[in-house]
């Protein structure tokens, strides 16, 4: 055990490097996945049939062929047709394509879940399709996307040890080196699992905070002490708050007064970086 700790201390810089590679692949893969998820998700709701059909085929293709096959194909087979990609690029591409396809279903579902009445209200205000999507539908859909995106992000993180299989010196690779140097198999793998667990917890917490912020923007529940009331937090439509009497509002004005300012800060202009995190 003492041997392992000495060896571990010596290996720390390399482990840090490996960790950085793993984080890099996660972030880049997730960024690509997010981009594809939005593109494919919105295209698969297009009014034009060929566009919709093409998007569906792409999505089903990358969902239906296993991530591992995609990665190995990019790494082993693609060079045979004359394209050789960096191993890390292969990994990022495979992660992005596979999780982007899954993510597009999330985007599609969330957009479809925004009540039709919201779009109709926007039409009645003369808003065109792009404006409707950008200003009315997507801001409401975002709140519904965060939870499923969190699951996908954790899945993506858990898929990153694959990098070591295509010669990328990631965390798994470095810890495997440590294992063969020390022979402490149990300690090495426990360390690796622990590190991954830690990363998963951090990502979960981040995404949970993001989800709370997104929900709060819809239902005005920003950290208010009296947040026990669930007024209008269900359904997302503007219609649920029907029965609230105005004197009820007046009574709560004292407590609720500061909230509009808090919302303004995290408001539409400064949408806290879902794009950055995922």
């Amino acid at each position, binding site marked *: 055990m003492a041997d392992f700790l000495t060896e571990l201390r010596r290996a720390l810089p390399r482990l840090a490097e490996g960790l950085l590679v793993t984080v890099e692949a996660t972030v880049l893969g997730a960024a690509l996945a997010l981009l594809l998820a939005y593109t494919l998700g919105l295209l698969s709701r297009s009014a034009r049939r060929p566009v919709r059909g093409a998007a569906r085929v792409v999505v089903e293709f990358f969902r239906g062929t296993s991530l*591992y*096959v995609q990665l190995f194909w990019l790494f082993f087979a693609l060079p045979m047709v004359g394209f050789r990609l960096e191993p890390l690029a292969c990994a990022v591409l495979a992660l992005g394509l596979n999780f982007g396809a899954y993510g597009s279903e999330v985007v599609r579902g969330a957009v479809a879940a925004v009540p039709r009445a919201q779009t109709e209200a926007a039409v009645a205000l003369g808003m065109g399709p792009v404006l409707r999507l950008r200003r009315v539908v997507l801001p409401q859909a975002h709140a519904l996307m965060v939870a499923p995106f969190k699951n996908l992000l954790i899945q993506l993180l858990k898929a990153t040890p694959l990098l070591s*299989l295509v010669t990328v010196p990631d965390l*798994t690779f470095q810890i495997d080196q440590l294992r063969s140097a020390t022979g402490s198999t149990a300690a090495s793998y426990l360390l690796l699992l622990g590190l991954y*667990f830690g990363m998963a917890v951090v990502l979960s917490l981040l995404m949970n905070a993001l989800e709370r912020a997104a929900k709060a923007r819809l239902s005005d529940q920003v950290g208010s002490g009296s947040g026990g009331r669930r007024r209008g937090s269900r359904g997302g439509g503007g219609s649920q708050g029907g029965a609230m009497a105005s004197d009820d509002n007046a009574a709560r004005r004292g407590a609720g007064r500061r909230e509009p300012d808090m919302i303004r800060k995290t408001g539409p202009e400064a949408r806290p970086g879902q794009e950055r995190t995922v």
Partner: protein
Amino acid sequence: MWDGEAAWAALPVVLEGFGVTLVATVLAFAVAMVLGLALALVQRAGPRWLALPLRGAAGFVRSTPLLVQLFAAWVLVPGLDAPTLGVLVLGVHYATYLSEVYRTGIDSVPRAQWEACTALSLPRRRVWRAVVLPQAVRNVLPPLGNYAVSMFKETPLLSVITVREMVHEANTFGSTHFAYLESFTLAAAVFLLASWPTSVLIRRLEARLAH
């Protein structure tokens, strides 16, 4: 570029690997279904001293990579051959997902059903067997199907502990005949042909159960 002859030669090899993949998926999913149900029931109705640590352990297994778990089990658990070990690790990993599926399924049975059982003084075992589980199954079937498909697509990981499933065979063929393009493209096609129809079936099932 594409070599038709190599592809033709790779086909039986890949298909044989596909057989292994299929068997591994079926066995591992059976393990996951039984173990997942046990996990869910213990967490829901078992004693606290057992439920809490189990919940923690399940959370740990669920949020760490399957690949590392396979590596670790391969080196640390002696006396089991690769396919058995692979099926067990895959089964345990997915059991932690499925326990959540069961849990939501059980939670979706309305409270009033439990209260009705209390009013009828039904014994607890009977409540579970005759009232709760049959109703939970409805909500549980589609997600179970989705997890089965997703497990199917994760079985290639077993190749890292030398299980001769499809991707392992494709890789071996590719390296010996220098025909990665053909062998991996075939493997991809087989995955697509097998998982797409299944997904469509599950979506139909989902739509039917929703009514």
